[in-house]
């Protein structure tokens, strides 16, 4: 089942003025696997994410996305919204970005914008109430309902997203990203601010997304219990460069990783070491 690489990042460099945020970073993510990007604060992880999802134009390097059918897309050449639409890369944000004044269901409907837009004949068919659009809208609601059920928010479907509890908002954001039916799901600290029980539920959800939907996952996370539990492959960054990569076990025992964390933040270093013991 598991095939080749879905994402190949080659010598990615991102400079802001004189500051080098990411330097010659190369790594790849396998299809239907969870790849984690970890590192101390300020290591450049979110910058990598923003380059992959098109919010930043990389200063140098290549980002290649390969689909199941062998189609390869150069992400660094696409605009942000085309990356989501054509390359099928979805993402969540470190500080949740839902549409707070819209209901949970509406949030998931917006995620299916491009499908619905085509079905509505770019609005004209929809305006006259064409049956093709009505059936498309119904299946969109069904998909949204299925995801709401999946993340345990079905009873909150008609509540404003901004009214949901923090953990619920995190899960809704993942459901919204999944409604775009992505090939690669990029999650920026999905466990931030969650309690232990919620983190465990999140791990379960992510594993089921990988196994049942065959979606590849790229993950930035500080919660080592989540990272170590669900990652198939871990890439460690520090100061914009890759310092190690491998399986959770390999990374955990790598002295360079421990040194990087010790140098940066004692608490996080402890977390890495504890999860190893």
């Amino acid at each position, binding site marked *: 089942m598991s095939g080749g690489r879905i994402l190949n990042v080659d010598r990615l460099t991102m400079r802001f003025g004189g500051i080098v945020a990411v330097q010659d970073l190369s790594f790849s993510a396998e299809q239907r696997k969870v790849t984690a990007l970890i590192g101390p604060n300020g290591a450049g992880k*979110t910058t990598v994410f*923003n380059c992959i999802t098109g*919010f930043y134009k990389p200063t140098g390097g290549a980002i290649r996305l390969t689909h199941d059918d062998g189609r390869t897309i150069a992400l660094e050449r696409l605009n942000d919204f085309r990356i989501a639409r054509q390359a099928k890369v979805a993402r969540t*944000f470190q500080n949740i970005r839902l549409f707070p004044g819209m209901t949970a269901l509406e949030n998931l409907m917006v995620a299916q914008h491009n499908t619905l837009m085509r079905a509505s004949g770019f609005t004209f068919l929809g305006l006259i109430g064409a049956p093709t659009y009505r059936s498309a809208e119904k299946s969109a609601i069904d998909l949204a309902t299925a995801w709401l059920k999946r993340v345990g928010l079905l009873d909150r479907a008609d509540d404003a997203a901004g009214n949901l509890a923090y953990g619920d908002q995190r899960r809704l954001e993942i459901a919204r990203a999944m409604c775009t039916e992505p090939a690669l799901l990029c999650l920026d600290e999905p466990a931030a601010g969650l309690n232990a029980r919620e983190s465990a539920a999140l791990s379960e959800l992510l594993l089921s997304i990988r196994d049942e939907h065959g979606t590849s996952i790229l993950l930035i996370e500080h919660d080592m219990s989540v990272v170590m539990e669900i990652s198939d492959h871990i890439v460690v960054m520090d100061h914009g460069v890759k310092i190690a990569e491998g399986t959770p076990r390999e990374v955990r025992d790598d002295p360079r990783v421990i040194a990087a964390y010790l140098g940066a933040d004692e608490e996080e270093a402890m977390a890495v070491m504890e999860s190893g013991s």
Partner: protein
Amino acid sequence: MDYFAQQLINGLVLGSIYGLIAIGYTMVYGIVGMINFAHGDIFMIGGFIALITFLILVSLGLTAVPVILLVVLLVAMAITALYGWTVERIAYRPLRHSFRLAPMLSAIGMSFVLMNYSQVAQGARVKPIPPLITGGHTLHESADGFVVQLSNVQILVVVTTIVLLSIFTWLVSHTRLGRDMRACEQDQTMAALLGVDVDRTISMTFVIGAALAAVAGLMYLLYYGLVDFFMGFVAGIKAFTAAVLGGIGSLPGAMLGGLAIGLIETFWSAYFSVEYKDVAAFSILIVVLIFMPTGLLGRPEVEKV
């Protein structure tokens, strides 16, 4: 060449007046983050107060021009500053933490109030005054008889602008008030925690902005020799355009934008058509913003993702 030089002088003088008004827009925007739509009308009020003070002084038998100018300047600045303070107090302060469009609508309302207040109080007709400062200097005379003139009023406008800008720059960079203002610009909550009186600082911003607008009002009165209740609208839009062109929130940008608008307007009138000078100014604003979305000197907005 001489014609060009003359237009350059005229453009710089007009630009100075726009710049003085633009500073008020940019300061308020920097600190409160709102467009003070009523600022153009504060400028108009400043012009009226200068005119009335001037009339009173002349009727009291004062003839020494420097004394008249100084008194008019001080009275206009003081009373107009109080207008700025009152407007902030009544129309903006209750809406400080409200949603963004509310203070803007309130400001548009306040602009209507001030405009029609002076129409009701002083009548709709244009109010002219005899030229107070006459004479000038011939800078150059070309063979075909074209004379490049620098009038004393023009010198006064430019010199006053430079002096006030120097004082103002010193105020912002060297005094406690300036430091408080910059702190509020960065982060109001943090500034308040560190003991900055945010309310007072914002009030002072409006007071200083209005005082500079009053100076611009006086300069306008001296340069054009008239005021009317509607002049604040057009000048206000131009000055706001100048502030945005220079990069709103940036003080040097406001002055630069003011000069740019003044020069564009003057040169367009001189070489193309007077009728379309405002169209030219607005079009150039749009073109500049297409290529530099935060204006000439504005800090580029880094998108936080």
